[in-house]
């Protein structure tokens, strides 16, 4: 077991998969000699060369579309979007093509590929370097959507994503890249897509989260236990599509109360799907309204640090929301 941060875990996953399978290649902006703007591909260009770690022109449509062509041909491309905020020029390829080619061709073509995207706020990136835009992809049938919150999950899920026969949108919360180190199993250990984890058990209420919010929720749960005697169960969804309904509903059945937390704005955010599903399928177990704690209804994280702090969700706001729900 090595101690890695999330960025290192991601790099290791790609390195191991490229080593294992020569169909795996990386393409994106600045992924080559520079090693990516966050360093996720650092060292891979030197190791695998100019073609398998390919610097593309500054064109996300091309990155997504050419990756799909390569996947159709038989490669296993990993496309990096420099920031999730810049995926939109590639949206047509992702939504019209990558997600649909399998269905539209009656299963005769497929697009096994991964699109990696750093997302999330709290890094002084303002409106265009902070977005949590997972809802655009979780609502798109044909895609899988993954958002790990720990180094082991990042490595194991990225390996699973690269091997997956379907297209996977892989969300990496950039604030977590170097947030902490943790043990990561060596070698070929994968974390299955479609399975949530329960890093903390509790009986009083369930907190559903992913990405950076996992860290915040666990911290909040400690506070709640210490200060309120409230035992919160924390469910880290890890995969957003397909959603692990069994784990979610089992937790709601146990606690009777659900708090859904994410960083993106609330209206139409991914939390709506989680909440609606719990409200429908878990109706009989609910002892309080399914509550959403989400970012404010503004078009993006504002830059100035006090405005950014105002936007971001942290442990304190989770504690406050959980207290209110627990008291219901």
């Amino acid at each position: 077991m090595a101690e890695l941060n999330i960025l290192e875990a991601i790099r290791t996953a790609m390195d191991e998969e490229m080593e294992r399978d020569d169909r795996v290649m990386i393409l994106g902006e600045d992924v080559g000699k520079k090693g990516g703007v966050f360093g996720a591909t650092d060292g891979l260009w030197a190791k695998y060369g100019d073609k398998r770690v390919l610097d593309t022109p500054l064109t996300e449509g091309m990155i997504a579309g050419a990756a799909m062509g390569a996947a159709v041909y038989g490669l296993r491309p990993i496309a990096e979007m420099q920031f999730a905020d810049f995926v939109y020029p590639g949206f047509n390829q992702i939504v019209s093509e990558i997600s649909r080619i399998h269905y539209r061709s009656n299963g005769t073509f497929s697009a096994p590929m991964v699109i990696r995207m750093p997302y999330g706020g709290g890094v002084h990136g303002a409106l265009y370097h902070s977005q949590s835009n997972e809802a655009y992809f979780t609502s798109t049938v044909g895609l899988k959507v993954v958002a790990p919150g720990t180094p082991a999950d990042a490595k194991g899920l990225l390996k699973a994503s690269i091997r997956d026969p379907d297209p996977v949108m892989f969300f990496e919360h950039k604030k977590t890249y170097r947030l902490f180190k943790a043990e990561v199993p060596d070698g070929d250990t994968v974390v299955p897509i479609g399975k949530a984890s329960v890093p903390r058990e509790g009986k009083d209420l369930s907190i559903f989260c992913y990405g950076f919010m996992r860290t915040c929720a666990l911290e909040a749960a400690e506070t709640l236990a210490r200060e309120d005697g409230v035992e919160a169960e924390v469910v880290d969804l890890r995969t957003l599509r397909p959603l692990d309904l069994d784990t979610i509903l089992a937790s709601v059945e146990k606690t009777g109360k659900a708090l859904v937390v994410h960083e993106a704005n609330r209206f139409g955010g991914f939390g709506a799907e989680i909440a609606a599903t719990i409200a429908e399928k878990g109706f009989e177990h609910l002892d309080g309204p399914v509550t959403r704690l989400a970012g404010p209804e503004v078009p993006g994280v504002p830059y100035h640090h006090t405005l950014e702090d105002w936007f971001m969700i942290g442990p304190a706001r989770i504690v406050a929301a959980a207290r209110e729900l627990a008291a219901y």
Partner: protein
Amino acid sequence: MARTDTTPRHAELGLTDEDVLGMYRAMLLARAVDERMWLMQRAGKIAFIISGQGHEGAQVATAWPMRPKQDWMAPFYRSIASAMTFGMTAEDIITAHLAKADDVSSGGRQMPGHYGGAPYNIVSLSSPVGTQVLHAVGIAMAAWVKGDDVVAMTQFGEGTANQGEVHEAMNFAGVHRLPVIFVCENNGYAISVPLDRQVAGGSVAARGAGYGMPGVEVDGGDVLACYAAAKEAHERARRGEGPSLIEAKVVRLTSHSSDDDQRRYRDPAEVEQLKELDPIPRFANELRAGGTLTDEVEERLRAEVKAEVNDASKRAEARPEPNIEEAHERVYAEPIPGGGTPVPLEPIEGGTH
């Protein structure tokens, strides 16, 4: 076969008489399939048809150098003749239009005109125009990364040439000298919008220079000129010298589709003259002048084609309809048992904070 004294043009291009008659036959067949589908549409058997009539010369000629099952093609909705030259059969095309369960393109899931065929290396086409151009480039990139001897070809209209993705595709292909051939079939209209409202400067071929690749304009009704351009582009790609852009000036003999009526926006005189620009009689005349095509051969070819289309239609119509039990299948490559995706190796369980 009667022959003249001078070497015919096609021989200079390395084509045998058989080759050019084969090309001519392919054009006749594509046209016959196309016309049959309009009949079926009028008979209510097909909800929609979008035609390749007028494009057949350029399509057969540019697809001719392509090596079936080795090279790849990313077609567009008028690519009936290209797709058939590259391997699809009349029956495949008609089956797709009838949306039958075993339609090779989509099993009845897509509208007419959305060609594709895994066994033929023809990439499944969607509707948003221009997206396929990037797929061809991605395939060329993959072949280049792997060192495979593969050329990718893609077709699109002049209206589509203005889409951003087409620009991104050509530029990327130019940067890495990828083995890909861009065929723009310029028929002067994007539905109702004429060339001068679509393409600034009026020439798609002129854009090649901005991507460091040759941009050739050819008369799309001159089959051998189209062939020569495509042959050169194919060789260039195989020599590792990179992509080529071919702009073939063709005519759209029909309305945009069965949903359109071009008399609303096209000058009646212009519509009147269209027939004269039909590439099929033009090619026939050339082959007759050179003595390659005789009445007798013409008759034989037309009879063969007619029989082939009749047979194909009959067989296609007899195929099974899709059934709703499968409608929700093949969304993902494999079913997801219990919400999880199978992965090949040992998974770890639970969280690991």
